[in-house]
């Protein structure tokens, strides 16, 4: 039995019958033992294998109707949401799945009918379209923040209004400063959410469960940090491994045992690769900024072919200190405020410069995702900062979700041209 053939049949079926039932059917087929083992046997990396198994299991749970679902934007304190016993569902991440399934022409069309302009980021447009097409499970709660991206707050409000749960929609206001006043302001909001959601769930506030969530988060953090340390010196690098595939566990599953297990497996796998790697092998190291296209593309294969590896993705960077489980709200507020994407861009530059020096990077690729103001607005400064350090920068214009904005020939020339520059230094 050829899994690729089965996969393409299933995907074609979804493309032709785009509805929530076909998604559920796909998840059911994928989670059946023979198919799951066939599927995972084709995955070379142990951590990627676990990532896929867990994602399928997780998505099955999300679509089962047995758990209260919480929609959330990317940069939220998911320790809080998981600690409340809610199942996080990240529409922006799921928009990436719509790209992988090849259904964005339909989701984007559905969003345009809802007055979403084509200059808005396709993560949000595709998510709105998927919601309109009834592809997402219905949420009990919705959370968003104004950290980095303020489109989430608006498009998520649209979801809340559509299903009349505006009283269960929480917009977390993250200040631009990180002084004590800001920490208090933010931690009070998180505390309010914890008690208000518990009340709406008719549950007694369970601080012990929240504390355990923070303990798990610390364990995950430390494994992820160790994995990053290993990557600094890992040259015999598995091309199939890419931190940009781990957005869901890195953000949405913070506080769960699954994220702890997953990042421990990752750390162990990379450690073994480091021990067994060809000591002579050297590759050029690149820092990847922002996200990547989530449909089939050849960017990373081109890099591999040209002896270049992504040493770290901006989204894999551990930017926060360990959390204090005895002070959950203050800790989580501090974590949110440590995010390099907070503020006017100076924090992001500072963090990227830190990565450049500690990871000895040779080049930077900033994927300039269409419509993403918070990232693209900093392109000039990113370019100047790294160029002044003698590090070449490629600003790669494209779209993470919409394949129609992926001119493959032009992207190939840009990436290969950049690779030639790096390899000539």
């Amino acid at each position, binding site marked *: 039995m050829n899994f690729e053939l089965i996969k393409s049949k299933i995907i074609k079926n979804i493309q032709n019958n785009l509805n929530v039932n076909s998604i559920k059917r796909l998840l059911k087929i994928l989670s059946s033992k023979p198919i799951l083992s066939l599927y995972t046997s084709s995955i070379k990396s142990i951590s990627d294998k676990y990532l896929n198994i867990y994602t399928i299991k997780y998505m099955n749970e999300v679509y089962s109707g047995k758990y209260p679902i919480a929609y959330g934007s990317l940069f939220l304190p998911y320790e809080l949401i998981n600690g409340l016993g809610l199942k996080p569902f990240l529409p922006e991440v799921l928009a990436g799945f719509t790209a992988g399934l090849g259904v964005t022409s339909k989701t984007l069309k559905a969003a345009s009918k809802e007055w979403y302009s084509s200059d808005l980021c396709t993560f949000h447009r595709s998510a709105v379209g998927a919601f309109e097409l009834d592809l997402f499970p219905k949420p009990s709660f919705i959370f968003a923040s104004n950290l980095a991206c303020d489109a989430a707050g608006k498009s998520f409000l649209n979801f809340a209004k559509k299903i009349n749960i505006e009283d269960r929609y929480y917009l977390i206001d993250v200040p631009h400063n990180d002084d004590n006043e800001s920490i208090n302001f933010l931690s009070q909001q998180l505390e309010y959410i914890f008690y208000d959601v518990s009340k709406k769930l008719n549950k007694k506030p369970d601080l012990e469960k929240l504390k355990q969530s923070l303990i798990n988060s610390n364990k995950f953090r430390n494994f992820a940090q160790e994995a990053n340390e290993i990557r600094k010196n890992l040259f015999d690098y598995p091309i199939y491994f890419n931190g940009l595939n781990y957005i869901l566990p890195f953000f949405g599953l913070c506080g769960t045992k699954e994220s702890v297990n997953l990042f421990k497996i990752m750390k162990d796998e990379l450690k073994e690769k480091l021990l067994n790697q060809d000591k002579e092998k050297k590759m050029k190291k690149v820092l990847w900024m922002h996200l990547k296209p989530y449909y089939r593309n050849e960017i990373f294969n081109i890099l591999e072919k040209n002896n270049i590896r992504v040493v770290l993705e901006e989204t894999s960077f551990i930017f926060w200190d360990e959390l204090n489980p005895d002070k959950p709200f203050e800790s989580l507020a501090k974590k949110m405020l440590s995010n390099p994407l907070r503020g006017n861009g100076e924090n992001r530059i500072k963090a990227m410069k830190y990565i450049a020096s500690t990871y000895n990077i040779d080049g930077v690729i900033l994927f300039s995702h269409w419509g993403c103001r918070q990232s693209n607005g900093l392109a000039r400064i990113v370019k100047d900062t790294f160029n002044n350090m003698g590090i070449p920068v490629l600003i790669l214009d494209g779209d993470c979700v919409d394949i129609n904005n992926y001119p493959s020939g*032009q992207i190939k*020339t*840009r990436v290969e*041209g950049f690779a*030639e*520059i790096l390899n000539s230094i």
Partner: protein
Amino acid sequence: MYYTCGIDIGSVSTEALILSIDENKNYEILSYIVSKTGSDSKNAAYDSFKLALQKANLAENQINSIVATGYGRVNVEFAKKNITEITCHATGVTLLFPDVLTIIDIGGQDSKVIKIDKVSKKPIDFLMNDKCAAGTGRFLEVMAKALEIDLDKFGEIFLNTKDKVDITSTCTVFAESEIVSLIGHGVPKEKIIKGLIYSIADRIISMVSRVGLEAPVCLTGGVAKNSGILNAIEEKLKVKLKIPFEPQITGALGAAYLAINYI
């Protein structure tokens, strides 16, 4: 002594160039061909190669190495290596003008700016136009058709016309509609042509600014043969541009020169 060939397959034209080159990399251009790519880039590459061989009085088996470049480079199955037009243009231009630090290449369907390192003479940065045809040779062709004026006359018209009208649309399709509307309003075609040439120059200047202007600057690509564009860019940049003896062959020259590394 070795014989090498560089083939540059662009969206509009294909160039093949044959070099004789020794181990010290002293070279001589034996022949070159500039022809239309047409709909079959594979055939265009092989046909140009054969014509260049004929011109150089060489047989196919005498060529020691072939490098392909340009957007159609992957289709040249008989090449030993594919190298991007960024590296090939930079190599070709620095062979002709060793002091050049910025290259502006305006081709049929894309335009690019390449920054050269003063010491290594290698490219250190580049920028290519986005996926639309504005600011390229194709843009000019479409406009010439809409104006019903031969593209070859654009340069002369630009130099002999005082005033211009601003062309506000950068999109090729909208610019064409704008031109049709201007003609309808009785605006002289000469003024429209002057405005069109400035609009292309503005797009190129914006790209140069992003990469950072460092003189001397070389202009290459088919559009470099248009004296109107050349003058408009020189006027805006306030820099005298260097133009190769044949602006379309620098990519193929660079490819042929680099081919010695793959013998």
